[in-house]
């Protein structure tokens, strides 16, 4: 599904390499987790995959179901099924949450040659998804993420994911800043989306999220590379001993 090979990335304006040869493949139906120290390049990887500017790919490739992601505009990557839940969701004053989400959904459908969703059907869809994430109607009426608490912003990301139903979901620290109950809501939201044809890449610092979203594979990223790959036990090891041993081993 998602296939990353030997990906090298540097900052566009600076000769600062950030990703130094990332190899990673997520198969359909599987949940992969990425852990790693601060500044190791996890968010950068998610941004480069989704097409944020400011980075330059100097080598390697990234494909989604065979299509060259790196050659596409961000909106085309979204239409192709890629979704990134941001580590820091963006506030957009003056644009209503509902308008935003409906514009996004219909733009994606249009790009795929599908019918647009009617206003009525859309409302029903969002209400239903919002309810399971305990997002109240008042929040939906507000401008995108404006005045939302940290936890509300993260839940709003998951709501967008639930409505857009992407094939490949990347979650960048969606658990950070969440209280215990919100964490469970988010995890339930993710689990509800698990499907044989959908892949997940979950970036996190904590085992706690992985207790709820059980990953199939865990990767450790350090200094712009995947330095270890293993099963769920790898996350438990990090939780217990930190990164010291792993980094020492690979240095």
């Amino acid at each position, binding site marked *: 599904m998602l296939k990353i090979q030997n990906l090298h990335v540097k900052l566009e304006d600076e000769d600062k390499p950030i990703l130094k040869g990332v190899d990673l493949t997520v198969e359909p139906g599987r949940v992969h987790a990425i852990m790693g120290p601060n500044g190791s390049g996890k968010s950068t990887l998610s941004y480069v995959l989704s097409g944020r500017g400011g980075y330059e790919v100097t080598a390697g490739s990234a494909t989604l179901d065979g299509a060259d992601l790196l050659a596409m505009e*961000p909106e085309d*990557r*979204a239409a192709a099924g890629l979704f990134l839940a941001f580590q820091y969701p*963006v506030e957009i*004053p*003056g644009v209503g949450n509902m308008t*935003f989400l409906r514009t996004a959904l219909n*733009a994606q459908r249009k790009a795929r040659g599908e019918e647009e969703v009617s206003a009525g059907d859309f409302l029903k869809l969002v209400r239903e998804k919002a309810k399971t994430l305990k997002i109240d109607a008042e929040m939906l009426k507000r401008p995108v993420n404006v005045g939302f608490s940290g936890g509300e912003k993260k839940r709003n990301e998951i709501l967008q994911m639930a409505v857009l139903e992407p094939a490949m979901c990347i979650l960048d620290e969606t658990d950070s800043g969440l209280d215990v109950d919100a964490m469970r809501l988010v995890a339930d939201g993710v689990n509800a989306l698990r499907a044989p044809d959908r892949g997940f890449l979950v970036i996190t610092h904590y085992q706690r999220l992985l207790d709820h979203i059980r990953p199939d594979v865990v990767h450790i990223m350090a200094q712009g590379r995947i330095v270890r790959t293993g099963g769920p036990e790898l996350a438990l090891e990090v939780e217990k001993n930190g990164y010291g041993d792993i980094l020492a081993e690979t240095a």
Partner: protein
Amino acid sequence: MAAPKPNAAAREAATAARLADLVLPRGGFTAAARAEAIARVRAMGLPGRRDEYWRWTDPAALNAAHPEGAAAFRVDRPIFEGRDKVRLVFVDGVFDAAASDDPALAGAEIALLSGAEGLDIHWAKALYGTLEAASHDPVPRPLAALNTAAAGEGVLISVSGRPARPLHISYRQSSEMSDVMLHHVIRLEPGAELTLLETGTPGARGNVVTEVDIGAGARFHHIRPQGRAFDRVLVTHLFARLAEGALMKSFTLTANGRLTRNEAVIRIAGDGAVAHVAGAALGDGKDAPFLHDDTVFVDHGAVGCESRQVFKKVLKNGAQGVFQGKILVRSGAQKTDGYQISQALLLDDDSQFLAKPELEIYADDVKCSHGSTTGAIDETALFYLRSRGVPRSEATALLVLSFLADAIAEIEDPELAEAVTGRLEDWLARRTG
């Protein structure tokens, strides 16, 4: 007094030439006002680039004896169509009775200046030219005085009740050379309420003055989508005087136009009055030059009043935006709440926004603030939208609308606000591709 500088002599000559070229209406009840206005124009002279408030906007096209000519806009689709209203149509400044509704509105008295002109006695006599005449200190507004002197047409509206339907003054341009001067006089009696819609391009060149006297507790709503002809030049002056507890809200939408200078001079004379003026201007220099200038003067002369100026401009391809806004709080005008914001969103590096915000305060217990910003589209927000599948052009349009939201929020009627938003969306769909 010293001898006039060479510059002054040139101005005097140009002014004399312009006046000599005008066909002045003879006037009945307006005769005295017109004669005084001519004297004012002579004394002030036509505006020039060296004048403090014309440094950024070249008045040459407004001063010239004749317009340069401007093609009429192909399809200026009607706006506010869904709304039941009384519509008065002016084609190249001439009233078109066949295209207009019967100028009758319950609770209001409506007449044409050209029709009432011959009368010696008219309610508008007490108002015609008076707010304009009082507006020149400290900044002269000679083009408004020129209008008082020479405008042959306009609408005289006296409102005593609260008409349910808006009055719609609809301008159409048909001639490429039309040179139009219109002078409207509006009186709202105490407690009255009027919604005035003013749409379209008056002519290839337009000079429109509106004098509004808002009585105690009266409410005046003004929504003005200015015509979209690319080459037209236009100067407007909105003079308003507010009595105790009066309210006015004026919103102007401008898309296209080689030159637009919208002046508003608002005198808050009664305690507890509220005056809001807002504008959204969209300029794309691709098809024709675009210069849009808002020059606003709010004069607080009473206690406990509120004023709000919200002006937003979206500029691309070398479009130019100018904002000159002043809040004056006279001594004794305590508890004044004055607010002013002017912002430009530049869609490229070629466009330019110049702003001159001014506060002049002579009272100590007031709350006044002003701000001016120039910025580009927020790349982070743009990426966020695109990462959700919204194409760049649509995402840009959404962000532009969000930028304009505060100005549109100054339109109180949700249906009219929606119509204006629709117009903005159309423009953006064509221009942000």
